[in-house]
């Protein structure tokens, strides 16, 4: 029975084994077969999730209350699969990835996606921990996939920070288990026991538990690893890391925060999360201003974007959750536009921001598409990024009006101010590309596939500006049982 509901996960798990086996038989052969197979796996997973959308209407507890399927998590599972599919498309066009351990790359990618799927559905601390680790360990390996000095260094830093964070998180879980006597954190048993046994220990344990998620979404102050990892990793991996673990982390953070919100624990969660969101937005944007490497700049940008994604959790109203769902999809699309174009530029050895000088002339189409993605990330019209920021801010304001908490107003003003600051660095690459003259002329490599893919996504981003109701109307039907 449960297998019908978790068919996407079964497909992914079966896919992992299939890729390993095929990789075993096709050792030492450079082929696109692994990538195409992985793409087929993700497509099947998305296809099933959409086909079975109505199944998820009523939440189902499965596997001895380990996971719960509902439309909220199903939506994010679809997003994760889409992101992973785009990553595969990017990887297929990345020569260095095809040279070494090609089939293994797709194994780890599928593993990470499986981990994120399970993490989004978990309702049990055991499941949270083990799926988070599946996601993390796969990511550590993926981060080192450029097989050079920088990659190794980034991978080590990622691993050390990540394991320390998950150990701290685990310690928090163990205390929560001690206080409540249960591991099912969405159950009434858990929340009632927290309300009965409230003390500072609950607060300390919860902060420890949240640390792991904050690390996964690269929110300040747990963000220090991300620029190094981004700089050292191959482009498809960065694109993946900046979307999937982030969304998975925030989804499970939402569920945890929801569990704590119904208790009477004497602690202002909104305040803490709002401060973390502000810190992430501020630190991310201010540091991004000084970057000269496109990858590092995007790392700081994604730290700032986590702050905006967190706003949905800060409010925890149905409206803010819808804004969060909308924001996630647009963030995914715009982010992939940027990374796909950056990969195409990287192929032509354009890496540092000054080396984009004059790229607008040799790669006009790609530069315009990149501009579209960057504008959407910064959130000005006419892109879906604007609409999504508008929804997020509107929900923030509505919840300020409801609660009268001044921290929400500060968060709103801070976020708006940072929208302006972010334009400084988001427009840095277009500034060099269009307004500067080229440093050196080189023979452009063919980027038509990237052009096409990024163009499709940009069209999507523009479309959701003009008709946000297409997506929002669908999100409205989602049943929010958290």
């Amino acid at each position: 029975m449960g297998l019908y509901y978790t068919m996407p996960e079964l497909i992914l798990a079966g896919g992992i084994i299939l890729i390993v086996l095929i990789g075993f038989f096709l050792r030492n052969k450079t082929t696109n077969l692994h990538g195409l197979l992985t793409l087929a796996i993700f497509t099947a997973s998305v296809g099933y999730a959409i086909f079975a959308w109505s199944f998820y209407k009523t939440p189902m507890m499965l596997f001895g209350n380990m996971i719960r399927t509902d439309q909220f998590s199903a939506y994010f599972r679809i997003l994760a699969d889409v992101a992973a599919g785009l990553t595969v498309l990017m990887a297929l066009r990345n020569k260095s990835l095809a040279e070494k351990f090609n089939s293994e790359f797709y194994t780890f990618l599928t593993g990470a996606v499986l981990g994120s799927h399970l993490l989004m559905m978990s309702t049990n601390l055991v499941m949270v921990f083990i799926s988070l680790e599946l996601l993390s360990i796969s990511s550590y390996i993926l981060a080192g996939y450029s097989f050079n000095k920088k990659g190794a260094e980034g991978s080590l830093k990622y691993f050390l920070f990540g394991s320390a964070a998950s150990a701290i998180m685990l310690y928090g879980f163990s205390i929560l288990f001690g206080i409540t006597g249960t591991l099912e954190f969405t159950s009434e048993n858990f929340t009632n026991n927290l309300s009965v046994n409230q003390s500072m220990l609950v607060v300390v344990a919860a902060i420890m538990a949240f640390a792991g998620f904050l690390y996964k979404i690269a929110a300040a102050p747990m963000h220090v690893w991300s620029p190094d990892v981004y700089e050292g990793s191959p482009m498809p991996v960065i694109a993946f890391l900046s979307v999937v673990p982030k969304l998975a982390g925030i989804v499970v953070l939402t569920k945890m925060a929801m569990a704590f919100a119904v208790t009477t624990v004497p602690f202002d969660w909104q305040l803490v999360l709002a401060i973390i969101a502000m810190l992430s937005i501020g630190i991310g944007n201010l540091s991004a201003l000084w970057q000269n490497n496109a990858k590092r700049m995007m790392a700081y940008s994604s730290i700032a974007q986590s702050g905006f994604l967190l706003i949905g959790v800060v409010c925890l109203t149905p409206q803010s959750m819808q804004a969060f769902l909308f924001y996630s999809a647009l963030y995914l699309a715009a982010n992939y536009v940027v990374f796909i174009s950056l990969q195409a530029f990287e192929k032509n050895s354009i890496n540092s921001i000054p080396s984009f000088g004059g790229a607008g002339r040799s790669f006009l189409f790609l530069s315009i598409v990149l501009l579209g993605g960057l504008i959407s990330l910064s959130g000005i019209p006419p892109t879906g990024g604007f609409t999504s920021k508008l929804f997020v801010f509107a929900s923030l304001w509505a919840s300020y009006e409801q609660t009268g908490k001044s921290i929400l107003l500060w968060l709103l003003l801070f976020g708006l101010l940072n929208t302006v600051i972010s334009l400084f660095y988001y427009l840095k690459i277009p500034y060099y590309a269009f307004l500067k003259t080229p440093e050196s002329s080189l023979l452009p490599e063919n980027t038509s596939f990237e052009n096409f893919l990024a163009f499709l996504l940009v069209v999507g981003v523009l479309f959701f500006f003009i008709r946000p109701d297409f997506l929002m109307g669908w999100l409205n039907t989602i049943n929010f049982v958290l």
Partner: protein
Amino acid sequence: MEHTLILSSILFAAGLMTVIVKRNAIMVLIGIELMLNAANLNLVFFNRNNPALSGHFFALFVIVVAVCEAAVGLAIVLRVYKYYQTSIPDQLTELKD
């Protein structure tokens, strides 16, 4: 029975300090193992009277995860060592702002 919790606090704090203090990736890994064990001790201790044994199972999975982390982590350390001839994170300076 409080002394078990005191031990777990000490293990956790010692692990945390090792992670911060020691300038070697392997020592950091050892510190992380200490923290994981502190959590395991908690889980087993809190499960004294629980017939569902959920704490025990959690501890079991933690051990499995620790093995995976250690295997991957050490492989990464070895690779870093190959490029840098060191396993001291602070001496890796290729990636900087």
